[in-house]
Each structure stands twice: as structure tokens, then as C-alpha cells.
């Protein structure tokens, strides 16, 4: 059984390595993600962000603009998840409630 696991692991490793070999080089201008329209015919969001991030928000770091402005709803969910984690830890771990019973 363990040998089977190793064989499966090697197979997945090989698949991933094949995928990595097939990736376009970093910074390649002709790769699909750097076009305005991808091969499926839909516009690529990244080119819009790269061209308009500074114009829209006057913020040089476009990652921040995407994180907090274009995709602000997603970050709001992340913040609320963090807050919910704190609340859950309070209710599960805090010993005040047990002591007062």
C-alpha cells in the first residue's frame, strides 16, 4: 500500500512538473494573461488593472488598489472571517463563562 502511495505521489509530481515546463516564461509579452483579450475571447482583467490602477486611485501600488478597492468586498469578507475567528476563540476557550456557572 505504501508503494502505491509513492507511485501516486511521483505521478502527480510528474504532472505538475510537466505543467511547469509548459508555462510561458516570466514577463513574456505574448502569453495569454498579458493580452487584452484572452484566447476564449473574453477581456483580461489584469490589463485593465495595470493600465488604470494609478489613474483610478492615485496609488502607486496596484496590488493595494486591487485588494482594497477593486476587490474590496473580498477583503471585507476576510476581515469579518478574522473577527469571527476571534469571537469563536473567545466563546470556546475563555474560562470566565465556565467559572461563573
Amino acid at each position, binding site marked *: 500500500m505504501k508503494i502505491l502511495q509513492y507511485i501516486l505521489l511521483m505521478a502527480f509530481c510528474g504532472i505538475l512538473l510537466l505543467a511547469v515546463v509548459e508555462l510561458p516564461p516570466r514577463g513574456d509579452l505574448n502569453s495569454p494573461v498579458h493580452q487584452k483579450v484572452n484566447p476564449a475571447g473574453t477581456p483580461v482583467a489584469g490589463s485593465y488593472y495595470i493600465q488604470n490602477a494609478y489613474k483610478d486611485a*492615485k496609488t502607486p501600488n496596484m496590488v493595494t488598489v486591487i485588494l482594497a*478597492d477593486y476587490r474590496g468586498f473580498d477583503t*471585507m469578507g*476576510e476581515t*469579518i472571517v478574522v473577527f469571527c475567528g*476571534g469571537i469563536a476563540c*473567545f466563546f470556546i476557550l475563555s474560562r470566565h463563562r465556565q467559572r*461563573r456557572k
Partner: protein
Amino acid sequence: MSVISENNMLENNMPEDDVPEDDMPENNLNVQQSGESMKSFTTSPIVHLTSRAVSPFIILMGLYVFFHGHYSPGGGFQGGVLMGAGILLLRLSLGVTRSQAILPTWLTLRLSALGALIYVSTGLVPVFFDGNVLEYGFLPISGVEPEYLRYYGILFIELGVTLTVMTTLVAIYDDLLGY
């Protein structure tokens, strides 16, 4: 009868910030033993001085990372984690009771809720001024162009994220110790 029990419940639901340290429960021996070393403070002066000297710089670095998120890698999450780490260093070396001055335990979850509230309210305000949710260009501040309103809107929500992340880390640490 019911009145008495209600009174008891009111008594029992007192706020948690006035609990003296010495009435911790004795029933859970395992937790008690494992938590004892974390609750007490070290007596080593080297650890004390080093942690007290380093922690303000860590918090300052966190503030820098938070405010410089517009221009360099960084932002609310990273800055909040750094500031929380600076506070947790004091919590580790001085003990929870002695490091209450920098961030009291009762304040942690309230500040965390305040951070989430800052984010959500910054997102909801533009709805009442012809905008969509989280469209900071419609924030009602006169005399500022919409681009710069988005700039400051990003700063506001990063402030909320920083508050939430920083205080939640400290709150989880304090909860683990049973405070």
C-alpha cells in the same frame, strides 16, 4: 424565586475586566499546569529589557508597513500582524497581567469589532450618496477629487483591517490562557 435567579444571572454576567487573577479554576489540572509557565513572567532581566526595548520598534515597523501599503508591499494584514507580534512579545516576557497597560484584555475583542465596523461602514456610506457598496469615490467629503477619495478610502479600510488583525491575535492569545 425567578427574581432571585435573575439577580444571580445578572451578578454572574459581570464584565470580565475586573476578575482578579487568583480565582482561576482549579478543576482542569492539565490546562492549569501547561498554562502556568505562560501566565507567569520571567525573572531574567535580559529577557525583560530586550523585549521591552525591541517591542516598540516592532510596533513602529508595523505602523510603517500599514501606512506605506500604498507605495510598497504591505498593508493592513501585514502591519496588523507585526503590531500584534510586538504586543505578544510583551505578553510573553512580562506576563499577561503586567502587560495589560499596552493593550488590556477586555479591550481586544471590542477593538476587533470596531475594526470590522470601520471597514463595513466605510463600505456602506457611499450607498447613501449615489454610489455602490465600497465605491469610495462617492464618500461625502467635499473638496477632494474622487481619485483621492479612493486613496483615502483605501487607507480607512486598511485601518479597520489593521485593528482587527492586531487585536484578534492578542485576544486569541489571552483566550488560550483563560483570561
